[in-house]
């Protein structure tokens, strides 16, 4: 019984972490599918959400208001990032765009370190999130449960947006064929700005969930998660939105389950084992699990 309970708890953790990775990977995939850009500054949007939350709370704002401010700030910064940094190099090679995203990322790191603080700033987490509750005799933490609910709601909202909104359809069309999308009279800049806004929103939501787990924000906060999200997006098939979600869930579940079940002597190799499994999957599915085949060069 204890083994079952332990497994159930770990399954909840796996879904929670996988969901957070899925949101991040989806944010990367939304931009990649349209621009062919892997935005390594995506993680900085998580950090911006954290600082937005901390500083809003410092003004005495109610918690929900501060959350909204944090998320809105990340969306705004994502759109500004595209306008200032990526639009001028849009017609350049993908390598140029990739390097630009590294530049944006390190400029933001440095700015956080110099203008805010190199040290972690504590993020107050609402008290009820510290607790746990019991379902069918199994104790489950409030934060992982919240992560799962938020992920499901965010994904459902996104599916609705991509199915029913004109801008959502235009984004899907642009990811298939950008030139023909413009032939529909659809404004290219608007579609790209919308993709950055959505990716900023996803980074912000994932950022809040990440902050609740960690309890603090520092300049490097986004680095590790965005790396994981990149792995997840590649695993799912770069550019595939469903693939990004699937890749995120698989990566999160693998990490949690390895942490829970590896013998102590091997725990240090956790990441290496997780990555080896993923390389194995990529050998079986060279285009990612749901990627479109890339033509041989």
């Amino acid at each position: 019984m204890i083994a079952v309970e332990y497994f159930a708890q770990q399954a909840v953790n796996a879904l929670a972490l996988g969901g957070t990775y899925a949101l991040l990977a989806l944010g990367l995939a939304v931009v990649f599918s349209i621009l062919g850009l892997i935005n390594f500054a995506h993680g900085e949007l998580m950090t911006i959400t954290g600082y937005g939350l901390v500083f809003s709370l410092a003004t005495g704002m109610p918690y929900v208001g501060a959350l909204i401010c944090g998320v809105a700030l990340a969306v705004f910064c994502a759109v500004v990032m595209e306008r200032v940094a990526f639009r001028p190099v849009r017609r350049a090679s993908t390598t140029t765009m990739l390097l630009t995203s590294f530049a944006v990322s390190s400029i933001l790191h440095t700015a956080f370190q110099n203008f805010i603080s190199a040290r972690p700033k504590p993020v107050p987490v609402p008290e009820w999130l510290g607790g746990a509750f019991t379902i069918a005799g199994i104790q489950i933490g409030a934060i992982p449960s919240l992560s799962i609910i938020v992920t499901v709601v965010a994904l459902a909202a996104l599916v609705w947006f991509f199915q029913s909104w004109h801008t959502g359809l235009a984004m899907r069309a642009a990811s298939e064929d950008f030139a023909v999308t413009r032939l529909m009279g659809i404004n290219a800049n608007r579609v790209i700005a919308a993709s950055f806004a959505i990716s900023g929103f996803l980074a912000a939501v994932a950022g809040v969930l990440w902050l609740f787990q960690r309890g603090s924000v520092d300049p490097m906060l986004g680095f590790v998660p965005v790396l994981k999200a990149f792995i997840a997006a590649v695993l799912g098939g770069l550019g595939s939105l469903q693939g990004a979600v699937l890749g995120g869930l698989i990566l999160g579940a693998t990490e949690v389950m390895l942490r829970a079940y590896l013998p102590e002597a091997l725990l240090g190799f956790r990441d290496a084992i997780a990555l080896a499994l993923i390389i194995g999957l990529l050998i079986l599915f060279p285009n990612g699990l749901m990627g479109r085949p890339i033509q041989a060069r």
Partner: protein
Amino acid sequence: MLTVDQLSVHYGPVKAVKKVSLDVQPGEIVAVLGANGAGKSSILNACLGLAPRSAGSITLAGARIDRLATEAIVRLGLTLVPEGRRVFSGLTVMQNLSLGGSVIGKDREAAQRSLEWILTLFPRLAERRSQLAGTLSGGEQQMLAIGRALMSKPRLLLLDEPSLGLAPNIVDLIFDLIIGLRKEGFTFLLVEQNAELALDTCDRAYLIMNGAVAAQGTPDLFRQSDLVGLAHFAASG
């Protein structure tokens, strides 16, 4: 209506189009003929800002359009059905059509009218409305590509190789449609490799060889002088 004057298109060092001039009058069907690789598609793409224009001007109804963004040109009433149809294969027929109507904006009634008009032009699309475009046959995809372009009620429609890879009965259907739409006031500029078919349909034709205009005139002129045969000879020799 459309005037292309001394247009040149370069892809890097490659000159695809050399000082081409042509014009289309309202209500006309004009054909651009020539062998594969002669530069026909580049002319159409340049009209919509999709190919790099290195010299020359393009004018629509008296206004220069050669520096405008593709979407701005479409909003002026000029659009292109690209070679190879290029429907959005992951979207349904209805979603493809609704994107085609983007120019209409928020006027839902006008969008609905356009949609009903397209579905009466192409009853086959009505039957397949919730199917993914990628699962349609080649002919149905061409109908969808043309229907999608017509959703914006363009004044002038450019068609790039509308007959390519289609069964003869579908080709007839599409060319009958073009002739029918011309009677309703639409204007067409079409690129065709199938010269006989194009000459049966058009009012005037241009022959493009090696990126330049080699001849122009009425279908009769082309037939009498066997200019088309010459073009094919030039391409294969």
